[in-house]
């Protein structure tokens, strides 16, 4: 092994082997290892009864469509996401709308993603020119009916924060193409979190939050309580 990557195991002498056998050295090593694990903290959570893992920001879960700081839809219906998707699971049908619903004169009339085919690669997110599309942190995607696995715009567009701009009245300039950083969405301090709050986009994540299991008409949800979190690892 001249490449130096493989450490050669040191040869035991016969005497050493003999003593190792007699005093059960390997056995004791094994036992102490398992004892260490026995006393260490376990890595599993009491999900879904009491705890829930809140992933980091970079996590790629269920898609969300975002809005800008005035509450306008960021999606301009350019279909780039649909084109870039390797599994062809996004359908976008654009339409004209100059009422100020979106940031441009074009919005998506239909925006659907079929989660049964999606592999959460994130290419759609990268392709989106306005950062409207983001793979969020929702990972509980099981549902009772297959048709529920097709997420449409109503279900993934985040709720508006603020009134839609009345451009005529305020005389404000539409901003056109712009990049809205997700951090511009109101920051909420952890203490303000109530049970059942949606995990905000700018929440750091990587914590283990207290949670409760809730049954709703659509299925079962584990609702995290972000005011009670524990740092994990």
């Amino acid at each position, binding site marked *: 092994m001249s490449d130096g990557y493989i450490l050669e195991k040191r040869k035991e002498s016969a005497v050493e082997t003999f003593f190792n056998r007699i005093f059960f050295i390997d056995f004791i090593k094994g036992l102490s290892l398992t004892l260490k*694990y026995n006393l260490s903290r376990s890595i599993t959570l*009491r999900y879904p009864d009491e705890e829930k893992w809140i992933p980091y920001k970079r996590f790629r879960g269920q898609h969300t469509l975002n809005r800008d700081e005035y509450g306008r839809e960021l999606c301009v219906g350019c279909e780039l996401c649909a084109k870039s998707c390797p599994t062809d699971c996004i359908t976008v049908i654009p339409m004209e709308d100059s009422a100020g619903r979106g940031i441009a004169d074009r919005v998506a009339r239909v925006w659907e993603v079929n989660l049964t085919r999606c592999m959460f690669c994130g290419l759609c997110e990268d392709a989106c020119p306005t950062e409207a599309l983001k793979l969020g942190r929702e990972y509980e995607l099981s549902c009772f009916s297959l048709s529920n696995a097709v997420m449409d715009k109503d279900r993934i567009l985040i709720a508006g924060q603020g009134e839609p701009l009345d451009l005529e009245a305020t005389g404000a300039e539409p901003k056109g193409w712009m990049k809205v950083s997700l951090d511009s969405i109101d920051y909420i301090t952890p203490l303000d979190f109530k049970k059942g709050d949606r995990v905000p986009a700018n929440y750091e994540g990587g914590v283990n939050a207290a949670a409760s299991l809730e049954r709703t008409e659509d299925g079962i949800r584990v609702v995290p309580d972000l005011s009670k979190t524990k740092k994990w690892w």
Partner: protein
Amino acid sequence: MPEMATILEVLFIIFKVVVVTMILFSLPLPLTWMERKIAAHIQVRLGPFRVGPHGVLQPFADMMKLMFKEDIIPYKADKRLFRIAPIISMVPVLAAFAVVPFGNDITIPFLNEEVSLYIADMDVAILYILAITGIGVYGIIFGGWASNSKYALLGGIRSTAQMISYELPMSLAAIGVVMITNSLSLVNIVNAQQGWHWNIIYQPLGFFIFFIASLAEINRIPFDLPEDEGTLAAGYHVEYSAMRFSFFMLTEYVAMVLASVLAVLLFFGGWNGPGFLPSIVWFVVKVSVFIYFFMWIRFTLPRYRYDQLMTIGWKILLPLSLFNVLITGFFLI
């Protein structure tokens, strides 16, 4: 008409038998919980957590489940034998506790009566325990044979060979202790170890042989070949379900307790210990440590192969135990 004292004595014996049996029957409940928790924590998991705080009620849930399950008897099984096999395996381990002493004599507060903490003190207690636990293997053999299934039969055959091979070193290791204390009665053996003269000091080799052999006798990892999941599905109890299956499980746990008890009585001074705790507490503490050790080993070691098992039994443990007897004899002379 017998006198009052005789009646009282008989009543006490019956009472003791009932109490010991109740304890033994309920022991698997905490033990299964312990085993699952220890398994979980060694594997960095949490283990049962949903029934009761920290899952302590899980064994009760399991018990309910086992009680309400269908009792399936295979069509081609030897039905009578299939039915009694779990009982045959259970009775000997319970019977072995008849001669196990649990502590010093205690005085009952109101009756002012000395009560010994054993059901019987036999002259041949060790021999009796070793003999009667050897009978337990019949439950496994009959269970395996009567199921009329390949895996079960193989499990039965393996367990016969294993029991025979390991009974010898186990008994011979116990002989070392008998030679030192000059008695076959467990009470005398424990009394001879008073004041830190624990036999482990004089018989370390004997203890190792005894411990390894008892691991094999109670079918625990690394010697659990009769119920090897990897090659035999579940071995001798593969066809069993519901309460009959749970009898086998109960046997296994009680046998583990018995092995711990024997190790404590023979080598670790029984209930002897510093005086600030009652003798029975010392006894329970020591036995618990051993039970933990058994579980700890289970989740540390892999299983031996069948030929390795035989090699260890016949070529290593048996000569070593004979050697141990010889050495002990020399020292005594």
